């Protein structure tokens, strides 16, 4: 009993899992994290997770991309090596637009996604910190840190009441290191 590190409530239905979260919250039991095979809409509000700020990052990267390419073209085409094409002005802004547009998109996409990977600690070769292998298949999992949250029996019962198909008392935090 005392060796239990994490209590996992395994649900086979997202609605039951939401009920499980309610049950735990009513009893002021902090939830460590929730692992699901698909995004659950409305769970952020329930869990009090703030809106993602990735949109701001995306906007900044977009501005950066536009600035970089516009300055590059300006330097090359207007400053460093102006070309005389039929006497037309070398600072031909309409011609700059497609490039500026493409790099705005390019920087936004890569900047934002890399920020996402960095913030979420996703990168190739990262050891997956998985608490239960079925969390990516058909189980919706609520993880409760066992330390300090006693008695464990009550937590088990709360999860069972909400419709958990199984409650696990894991002695290891992650099962995927084996």
């Amino acid at each position, binding site marked *: 009993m005392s060796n239990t590190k994490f209590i996992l409530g395994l649900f*086979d239905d997202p*609605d039951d899992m939401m009920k499980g979260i309610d049950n735990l919250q009513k009893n002021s039991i902090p939830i460590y*994290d929730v*692992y*699901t*095979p*698909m*995004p*659950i809409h409305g*769970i*952020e509000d329930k*869990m009090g*997770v703030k809106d993602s700020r*990735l*949109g701001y990052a*995306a906007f900044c990267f*977009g501005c950066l991309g536009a600035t970089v390419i516009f300055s*590059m*073209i300006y330097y*090359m*085409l207007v400053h*460093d*090596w102006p*070309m005389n*094409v039929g006497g037309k002005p070398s600072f*031909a802004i309409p*011609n*700059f637009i*497609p*490039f500026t*547009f*493409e*790099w705005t*998109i*390019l920087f*936004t*996409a*890569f900047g*934002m*996604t890399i920020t*996402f990977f960095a913030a*979420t*600690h*996703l*990168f*190739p*070769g*990262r*050891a*997956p*910190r*998985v*608490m239960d*292998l*079925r*969390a*990516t*298949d*058909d189980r919706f999992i609520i993880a409760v840190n066992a330390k300090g949250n006693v008695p464990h029996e009550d937590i088990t019962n709360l999860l069972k009441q909400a419709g958990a198909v199984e409650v696990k008392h894991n002695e290891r935090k992650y099962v*995927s290191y084996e």
Partner: protein
Amino acid sequence: MTGKDITYAQITNDILFPVENKPNKAWWIGFTVSSLGAMLWVVSISLTFWFGLGEWGLNKTVGWAWDITGFVWWVGIGHAGTLISAVLLIFRQNWRNSINRSAEAMTIFAVICAATYIVAHMGRPWLAYFTLPLPNQYGSLWVNWNSALMMDVFAISTYFSVSLLFWYTGLLPDIASIRDRATGLRRRIYSILSFGWTGSLKTWQRFETVSLILAGISTPLVLSVHTIVSFDFATSLEPGWHTTIFPPYFVAGAIFSGFAMVQTLLLVTRKVLGLENYITMFHIESMNKIILLTGSIVGVAYITEFFIAWYSQVEYEQYAFINRATGPYWWAYWSMMSCNVISPQLFWSKKLRTSIKFSWFLSIIVNIGMWFERFVIIVTSLHRDYIPSSWAMFYPTWVDVSVFIGSIGLFFTMFLLFIRVLPSVAIAEVKLLLKTSSEQAKKKLIEEGHLDPVEVEYYKESLTKYDSIDMADYEKV
């Protein structure tokens, strides 16, 4: 989504079946044929690189022919994937969830094929870096930022890399599903590929934000790409190319051909992989409606071009269009007209657009028609321009033909490998549909009497065309 007693576990099992098991006979036959095609491509592209562009049938007058035709054809095909994954996501069209993955994969492979044409037609592909704005010892003489071809370099490379990013980010949760079910070496490989995905709350929240923003920026991107491809022609002074209608006309054509290719691929894939419950008649019919719409837009564009040629009173422009329809390339023009404008109109018939065999047949016709469209635009405009003394005909060599046929082989080889090693349907996104827009959820609502009987009758009637539904189940409800 159709099927009885589908659970979350069953969705994973169904979709991962082709990934976790040995391929069936149909796959092996397809793979053998397409890798033979890819080998033909290797041979013909190597000859082109070794001996130069003289291997192709180009002459002084017709300097662009099959190669640019193939390039525009492939880029156009690529567009449907982004359209399905990005535009339909923004419009909250849930039915895209089961087809977006394979359509995006198609985009990536099609753009790879398109890029090979660009590199090949440079003649000296090892100097491809000349298209990049790198400091050099000629001055520095920079690239020409006024050129539409330069815009193309930026558009295609951005399009390819952003599509790849969008596709791979979407794959992460599904690769994690494979990883957690696999053992041994497979687990290690998929573990690296999955970037350590866990599916925690914060990960999903950020993932959805990223998907939505990527979709939002991919939508104008995909429209810009074919617009810029059309600039390659529209900014020239060539009669038949020098038209302002090109950008929207090319974009509509791209979506048209892209959906046809999605149809060609998916109608076969769903049968071979047994995904009838996920890619249903609803998808097939919806895509056929899009083919009908974009086919009609393309038809209007063809007629507008003709009208404007007459209305402009420019004799060169008028000659170019009369020559297209009645000159030595009349057969290409009329193949294009009948494949792209006339035959999609058959989809006004509900019977035809819900027939799987006919849809597949017509998708091939559209693919052929769209190839002819690019051929007509490129070759018939070039072969007779302002000076009659330079008029000539274009005759492809066997290398021209092999590069084209070979690229189709290359495309299918990549696609077949993809469906073997990665999930061809977005598992997580399909799971979202289980309790909302699946047939079994709807049936439950009907059985419990929540719906208006008139609507139920209409619903049952529309189900009869689905090949994955047994109507006997609906007799009692």
